[in-house]
């Protein structure tokens, strides 16, 4: 039977190294299948997160040959099998063990975003066309691959001042909800660090749900912030008020 060689990171918060495993190939096999095979036959304590194995839950994120991917959707036959496949944990998050990283920070950021707040006396009617653009954002499966590749987090570690693409998408879903009455622009500017994003679109490239994170969420949010805080007329009126 043909085999693949996987180099899988084994280690914890203190450090570690890649270990090599040979795995028999099967038709249509994905990287997560190979990891499960290693667990079942070679390394029962290999730590991997997964749930649905169908690209719907966003649990099995890792870096395959340096590229952030869902391992359940990465076909082995899409990779060069003549050399070892390297599998590493997401780099932007602290390693707990092997491929499992500490992603709790994301849940803390999420908590800060004010929830959906229907406008008073609203009628619960919406056009599909108005719902469409928000439904794009609500496809997000929280795999955190966008957070993982964003250089503001990955290289500059601005976690204290920057919420990351996932939470711009979530905020955009709330801001653009046809019946929402709250405003989150001040939060975006002052606490979520929207200004740090310089639109390199790395997040959009890795999104397994193909959400146009930069074009449809981040740029419109930037425009909202500009409208609210830097609009020439508003600046003028606020100057008058100050006097």
């Amino acid at each position, binding site marked *: 039977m043909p085999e693949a060689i996987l180099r899988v990171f084994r280690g914890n918060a203190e450090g570690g190294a890649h270990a090599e495993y040979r795995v028999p190939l099967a038709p249509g096999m994905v990287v997560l299948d190979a990891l499960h095979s290693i667990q079942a036959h070679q390394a*029962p304590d290999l730590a991997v997160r997964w749930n649905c194995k169908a690209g*719907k839950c966003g649990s099995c994120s890792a870096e395959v040959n340096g590229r952030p991917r869902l391992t359940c959707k990465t076909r082995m036959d899409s990779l060069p099998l003549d050399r070892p496949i390297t599998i590493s944990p997401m780099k932007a998050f602290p390693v707990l063990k092997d491929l499992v990283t500490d992603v709790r920070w994301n849940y803390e950021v999420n908590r800060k975003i004010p929830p959906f707040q229907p406008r008073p006396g609203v009628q*619960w009617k919406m056009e*599909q066309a108005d719902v469409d653009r928000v439904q794009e954002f609500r496809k997000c499966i929280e795999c955190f691959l966008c957070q993982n590749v964003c250089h503001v987090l990955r290289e500059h570690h601005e976690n204290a001042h920057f919420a990351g693409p996932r939470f711009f998408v979530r905020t955009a879903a*709330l801001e653009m909800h046809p019946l929402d009455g709250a405003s989150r622009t001040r939060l975006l500017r002052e606490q979520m660090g929207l200004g740090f994003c310089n639109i390199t679109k790395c997040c959009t490239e890795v999104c397994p749900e193909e959400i146009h994170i930069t074009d449809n969420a981040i740029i419109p949010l930037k425009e909202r912030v500009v409208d609210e805080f830097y609009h020439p007329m508003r600046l003028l009126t606020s100057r008058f008020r100050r006097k």
Partner: protein
Amino acid sequence: MTPPYETHEHDVLIIGAGGAGLRAAIEALAHGASVGIVCKSLLGKAHTVMAEGGVAAAMGNVDAADDWRTHFRDTMRGGKFLNNWRMAQLHAQESPERVRELEQWGALFDRTPSGDILQRAFGGHTFKRLCHVGDRTGLEMIRTLQDRGVQLGIDVYMECTVTRLLKDGDRIAGAFAYWREQGRFVIFKAKSVVIATGGIGKAWKVTSNSWECTGDGMALAYEAGAELLDMEFVQFHPTGMVWPPGVQGILVTEAVRGEGGILRNKDGERFMQKYDPKRMELSTRDVVARSIYTEVKEGRGSPHGGAFLDISQKPADYVKRKLPSMYHQFKELADVDITKGPMEVGPTCHYMMGGIRVDAETARSSVSGLFAAGEAAAGLHGANRLGGNSLSDLLVFGRRAGAAAADHAKNSAPPSIDPAQIAEAEREMLAPFERAEGDSPYAIHHDLQEMLQSHVGIFRIEADLRHALEELEKLKSRAARVRVEGSRLFNPGWHLARDLRCMLTVAEAVARGALARRESRGAHSRIDFPQLDDAWGKKNIVTAKRDGAMTLAEVPVRDLPEDLKQILAEEK
């Protein structure tokens, strides 16, 4: 009380953070209780996230003639009248309000031209009834509920597994658990516990279920003395993927058929014509699953042992809009473009109709302070569940369980926990590390899956079921000597060793129930008793632990009140 252990105290402890658990948490909090919710995975990854087709609620947005009575009748008929009728009634009456509530919390369902929530057709439902978001309805639901719960202030204990319920005499006192990350033990003290742990599919080889669905809640409740009900009824969803091998069992939503998908065998024959000419592809799941299985068994299957399911007669952008995740799933995992050609599908173990026996109004189990909701509870679906009735079940009975658990807590004194129970729970968890030899948990799990798949599947027969019970004894003794390698730090082998015991307990209840029920009804098909039997139609089977042994008892199905009888008699 127990100084060496990390301890948390809540009025209400909820085990499981899928739809039922989160809805229960929100309600318990609204009733003034302090609430903790424990889940094996990260928040938002529970199996609800995989629900695709929709949530059934008789809102009448598309078919104005729909009302709760028709939904009630469909549910009872689908369940072959073994359902707890009061649950079916409450479910049909309350689900529209539960869906509207989700919308008010920010969920965005697909819309009708007049701006209301759009509803689609599904098997066994007389009218277009399933509120949906393309084919990712479960994701929308779980995000809405988790955001709501977190904002309201529930305490979430993620990646934490409960291994034992703790008791104070006859009443519930809390739970013993471990953190998956560090392997440290933790104790939860609670006046009420709600079990919302979902299903048991991972005990079978071909399943749509994730690693989490190992019957934990049912096994924990059983060990704590609670009664289980209808354990013989396991739903095989007619359409799972069959190829390639790694994706075998992954769900293909019933919405494909709801949107007009057609089933054919290898000869191009639309075979549902033979099995249910009236409802065709939109027959109930038990019927469609048996039909596909029979076609394959009789040599008319597709190349990889399934049937062809075709939606390519619909316009490509319609398919991509209404079934986006199916489109991607097949394209990326099976190299099939479903807008151009058929999918290959076959039955996959999907849902457990049976579970913890509960009171309809309060979701209370037979143990004081212990409640259950969602797939872990039994009664609503009877012998077969209709698609879409699970998501509505989660909402209706999750809410009821949360309210009742909070009320129970208000009227209860804080429990005390006997340290001996805790010592025993810890000893049990650490034993697998101390063995020099013994089977790997993966090997035992593999053998259990193979055995159930071949002996306790869609079609059952006495000899197979007896063989299954013998094999289960062997597997149980192997599991009692399981050996775990490595440390307690995030060790999936260790985690599986514990989950395995739950699967074995529940599998035994399924096999015993299936052996006892000598008829075919809904999802339970006996080759040796192929007909419905009226006498069995008046009985449910209750499973409980008595004097250390699994015992079964037959209990009469409660008689319907006249007004509900009237509804069932109406033809529609």
